């Protein structure tokens, strides 16, 4: 029976999403290491189905400044992926990509946005590819959009855009270790429910 909202996902569905998260994060760590030109290790990602308000808190509270890179998924699956990074991680990325010390994530220049958009593109593609490879579905992603603002204001956008009937999102929490620092990066996956059913169906998972 197809599910009609994210609350109906059972332990097995969550395991499948975890595996997708694992493969995606693995690919992402490799790409990230190439971009940053340094070794990047990863901790096994944690996949959770969270309320938006819980996700706010997991990211330091709704008013915490964060950078989000968002892309639309289309093809066989319709949805939104959003990659959320802290100020600390943003600074580390800009330092290694543009060799600049950045002090204020509230105001990003076009060059900085473009660099972060590229990182987001790589990260989102890593996950989208892991989903596509496992499910043999055709998944494309749009050119990413970058915004820095209150994390709470960013997190509600995908759910609102998808006209979601619930306040739940699929939250993949990744910790990457690079330059002896652990940096947190989070991937949000907000598929429309029909797409989630398509995905589980292609993976041969009983719904």
């Amino acid at each position, binding site marked *: 029976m197809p599910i009609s909202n994210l609350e109906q996902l059972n332990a097995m569905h969550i395991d499948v999403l975890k595996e997708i998260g694992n493969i995606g994060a693995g690919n992402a760590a490799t790409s990230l290491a190439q971009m940053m030109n340094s070794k990047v290790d990863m901790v096994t990602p944690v996949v959770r189905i969270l309320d938006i308000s819980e996700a706010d808190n997991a990211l330091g509270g709704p008013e915490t400044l964060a950078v989000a890179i968002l892309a639309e998924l289309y093809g066989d699956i319709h949805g939104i992926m959003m990659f959320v990074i802290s100020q600390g991680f943003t600074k580390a990325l800009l330092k290694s990509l543009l060799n600049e010390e950045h002090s204020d994530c509230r105001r990003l220049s076009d060059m900085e946005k473009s660099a972060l958009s590229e990182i987001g593109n790589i990260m989102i593609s890593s996950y989208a590819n892991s989903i596509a490879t496992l499910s043999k579905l055709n998944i494309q992603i749009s*050119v990413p959009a970058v915004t820095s603002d209150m994390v709470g*204001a960013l997190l*509600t956008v995908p759910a609102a855009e998808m006209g979601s*009937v619930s*306040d739940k999102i699929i939250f993949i929490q990744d910790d990457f270790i690079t330059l002896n620092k652990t940096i947190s990066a989070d991937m949000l996956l907000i598929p429309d429910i029909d797409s989630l059913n398509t995905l589980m169906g292609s993976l041969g998972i009983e719904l």
Partner: protein
Amino acid sequence: MSELIVVNISDVKVAPNPSIFVTYALGSCVGICLYDPIVKSAGLAHIMLPSHPDEKPSSQIFRYADTCLPESVKLMEKFGCMRSRMTAKIAGGAKMFKVASDSAFGNIGQRNIEAVKKTLASLHIKILAEDTGADYGRTVYFNSQTGKMTVKSFAKGIKVF
């Protein structure tokens, strides 16, 4: 002064004077401050989407502008407010992301603002002030003693309406 009354996403809180309400980090969502200046009871609602889907009558009514506001007004009336005296101040409805390949993306904020205005008009509630649209997140405070709405953002700092 009592503690801050926190309004979550898809939620409304109503309280007698004196109260200070807050709802954090509105993006495309809209915050609606309802007020009766005579009894000074106030309410703050945080809606996420414009209209309630017809086929799901049981789903959360406070998520949608068109179902949240009439219900919020009823809650206000329980605190002695009269609808004919009620006024509103609204904030939020931003377009947080610009997706280059999809110009329709991000219009949900605008649709939320329109739905809120339409619903308030149908309830004959006048909008005294608004801080809506643009491309940044807002935290909204509402003070029942003064009827003032304070909007806090990274982009514009603190503004009082």
